[in-house]
């Protein structure tokens, strides 16, 4: 079992550009959450996807959008990048039939905006 995988591992973008990050959940998991972890901070909840719908959203602007595919994988899109978007982006997955605390995190994507 590969666990939660994220791609790419690192990327560098320029202010104003758009970026897409990808997450493949652990086998058997159908719920995906995204978090932003700025340097020296704890993760902040961006949103959660289940059955291809955004189920809950944290306090993030509309520049942050997502998508979940029929195979449960997910994408996080960020438009009009700002320097402040530089962070580690974490994906977490769990099975809807499992306890919510049994969520598994991926290793993250380190985004640097210059």
């Amino acid at each position, binding site marked *: 079992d590969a666990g939660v995988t994220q791609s790419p591992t690192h990327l560098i973008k320029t202010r104003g550009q758009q970026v897409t990050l990808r997450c493949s959940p652990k086998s058997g998991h159908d719920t995906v*959450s995204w978090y932003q972890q700025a340097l*020296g*901070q704890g993760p902040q909840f961006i949103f959660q996807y289940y059955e291809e719908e955004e189920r*809950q959203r944290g306090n993030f602007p509309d520049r942050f959008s997502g998508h979940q595919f029929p195979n449960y994988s997910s994408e996080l899109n960020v438009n009009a990048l700002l320097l402040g978007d530089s962070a580690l982006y974490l994906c977490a997955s769990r099975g809807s039939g499992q306890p*919510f605390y049994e969520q598994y*995190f991926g290793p*993250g994507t380190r985004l640097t905006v210059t």
Partner: protein
Amino acid sequence: AQTVTQSQPEMSVQEAETVTLSCTYDTSESDYYLFWYKQPPSRQMILVIRQEAYKQQNATENRFSVNFQKAAKSFSLKISDSQLGDAAMYFCAYRSFTGNQFYFGTGTSLTVIP
């Protein structure tokens, strides 16, 4: 919104000794869950221990135990017989009983001295 505070940015402990990491939180809810997560240099967040607010008994997982003081809104983590592999960032997190969002503190960096 709920807030989670970790007032110890860094802690150190001698190998085989005991260390306690502090966490306080603010909420108006009566039912919720609290967690400690570990984030090693590999960046992958791992659940260490959880506590349901309705349970008076403090949770224990092998060398890890918590001191949950609901009235004081305090949730500390005790690591006994510290091992080199315990070195990591530790995050305290809160989740309400009904929501999907986790709220994380800013973390405590734990160093284990051989």
